[in-house]
C-alpha cells in the first residue's frame, strides 16, 4: 500500500518538474545578438529616459499624445524581425504576438491606431528622424550606453514648449 502510494505520488512530481523545465526553456529570452536602443525625434520634449510603463503605454497605443500635445507616432519593424522581438522582450517585457493582438483589437474597434510598420532598420531610422513626435528603436552602436537617442534637427520641434 505504501509502495503504491509512493509510486503514485512521484509520477505527478516528475510530470510537474518536466513541465516546469519545458516551460522555462520555451519562455527564456531569445538569445540573439540584437541590442535595441530607443530613438526619438528631436522635436519630442522627452526626459532622459522613459519607464517601462510609459513605453508600454506608448507602444500599445494607450498614450496617444506627448504632454506638449504633439501626437505620438510609433514606428516598428515586422513582428518576426530580431530587433523587434528583442525590443518587445527587453524594453516592454512582453511577447511580440501579445502586442500584435492588442494592436488588432485597437484597429478593429476604432479605439486607437496600430503603429506604422516599416521593413528595415534604415527606414525606421529615417521615419523617426523626419516625423515630429516619432518614436522607434534602432540597433545600438557598440559602446553607446545612453538609454535613448534623439534624431533629427531640433528645428523640427513644433510645440515643444512644455518640458517635463
Amino acid at each position: 500500500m505504501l509502495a503504491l502510494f509512493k509510486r503514485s505520488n512521484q509520477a505527478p512530481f516528475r510530470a510537474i518538474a518536466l513541465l516546469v523545465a519545458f516551460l522555462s526553456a520555451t519562455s527564456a529570452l531569445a538569445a540573439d545578438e540584437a541590442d535595441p536602443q530607443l530613438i526619438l525625434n528631436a522635436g519630442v520634449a522627452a526626459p532622459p529616459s522613459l519607464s517601462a510603463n510609459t513605453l508600454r503605454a506608448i507602444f500599445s497605443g494607450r498614450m496617444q499624445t506627448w504632454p506638449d500635445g504633439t501626437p505620438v507616432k510609433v514606428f516598428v519593424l515586422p513582428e518576426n524581425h530580431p530587433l523587434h522581438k528583442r525590443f518587445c522582450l527587453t524594453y516592454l517585457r512582453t511577447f511580440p504576438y501579445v502586442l500584435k493582438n492588442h494592436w488588432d483589437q485597437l484597429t478593429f474597434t476604432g479605439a486607437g491606431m496600430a503603429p506604422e510598420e516599416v521593413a528595415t532598420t534604415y527606414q525606421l531610422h529615417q521615419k523617426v528622424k523626419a516625423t515630429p513626435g516619432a518614436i522607434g528603436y534602432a540597433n545600438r552602436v557598440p559602446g553607446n550606453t545612453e538609454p535613448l537617442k534623439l534624431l533629427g534637427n531640433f528645428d523640427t520641434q513644433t510645440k515643444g514648449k512644455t518640458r517635463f
Partner: protein
Amino acid sequence: MNNKLTGHQPSKSLWGPLLLVALALCASLVQADTDRTFKMHGFASQAFLYSKGNNFFGDSTDDDGSFEYFEAAIGGQYRHNSWLSLSGQLFSRDAGATDNGSIRTDYFYADMRFVQNFNSAAGVRVGRVRNPYGFYNSTRDVLFTRPSIMLPQHYYDGFGIRELFFSADGIQLYGYWDGDNHSTTFTSTYGRTDEISSSTFDNLFGSAGSAGGDAELRKPLFAQIMSDINGGLWKIGVSLFDGTLNFRNPQFTAGLDANIVALSLQRNFQRFSIISEYSLLSLEGTFASPFIGAFNFSSKGESLYVQTDYRQNNALTWFARVDNQLGDRTDPNGTDSLVVTLGGRWIPAKNWMLAAEVHGARGTSFVPQADNEGQNIKERSEVFVMMLGYRF
C-alpha cells in the same frame, strides 16, 4: 432569407451614409495638417462548412457543404487633435439563415479624451459604440482577432440576444491607469432605449413575436474592467451586462430582465497561451395576457470554456478547446451542451489568414435554430469549418 438575429437594421439608420461622408471629409482634412491622422482598415473572409447532424450557416449537411458564411468590413479612424477623434466601420455578414449580408453600421462614434498623462487617460465616446464583453465581443466578427472561426458558446446567441449585444447607440465612458506592473482599463456603455425587431423577440419567446407588436430594449448597461499584468502576460477581466427587454402586442405583454456577469482570464507564454472565460446569465421574466393570465419566471444559465493555443512558429498556431454550457441550472441534464474543438490558424503572409477547425458537439444550444427549421435538431453535431481571410 429572413432577418433573424441580425444586428441593427439598416433601414432604421442614417448612420451608414453619414459615416461615408465623414470618412471622405476626414481624408481630405488630413492633407492640411500633420497633427491630423487618418487610417483606414478592412477585412473580408469567406468560409466553407461541412457538418453531420445539424446545419451550420446554410445547408452544411449537404454533400458539397455550405459557403454561406462571409464577413467583410471597411472602416477608418480620424484623429483631429490630441483630444478628438472619429471612428467608424461598415460591416456585412452572411451566415446561412441567421444573417443576410446586409450592410450595416457596426460602429460610428466621436471619441473625446479629456484627460491624458503618462500613467492614465479618460474619455467619452458618443454615437454607436461597440460593447465591451469578455475578451472578444468588441471584435467578434473579425477572423483576425477572435480565438477561432466559430466562437465559444460564451459569445453565442444561445439566448437570442445577439442583436442587443453587439453595439449600442449611446455613451461610452472609458479610462485606463498604469501601475507598477499593470495597465487597467475601464469601459462602460450606457445605451439608449432602443426599439428592436420582433424577430429577435421570436428567438426568445418562439413565434409569438411574429404576431406583431412593439419591442424595446430599455437602457442596456455594459461595464468592463480589464487588467493587463506584466505587459499582457496575464490578462484578467470582469464584464457586466444589464438590460430589460419589453414586448407588447394585442395578445400579451412581456418583460425580461437579463443580467450577465462574466470573468475572463488569460495567461500568455512564449509558445503557449491559456484562455478561459466563465459567465453567469440571470433571467427574470413577466408575462401577462387577458387570455392566459399572468405569470413570472426566472432562470440561471452558465458557460465555461478553456482554450490552449500553441504557436509552432510565427505563422502557425494550433489550439484545442473544451466548452460547456448549462442553459438552465435547474435542468442540467436537459440543457447541458459540450463542444470540443481542435483547430489551427496559418498566416502565410502579413495580410492573409487561413483557419480550419473541427467541432464535436453534444447538446443543441450550439446549433443555429434558423438553419435547421422544419427538421428535428439532433443531439450531436460534427462540424468542419475552414475560413480564408484578407485584411488591410
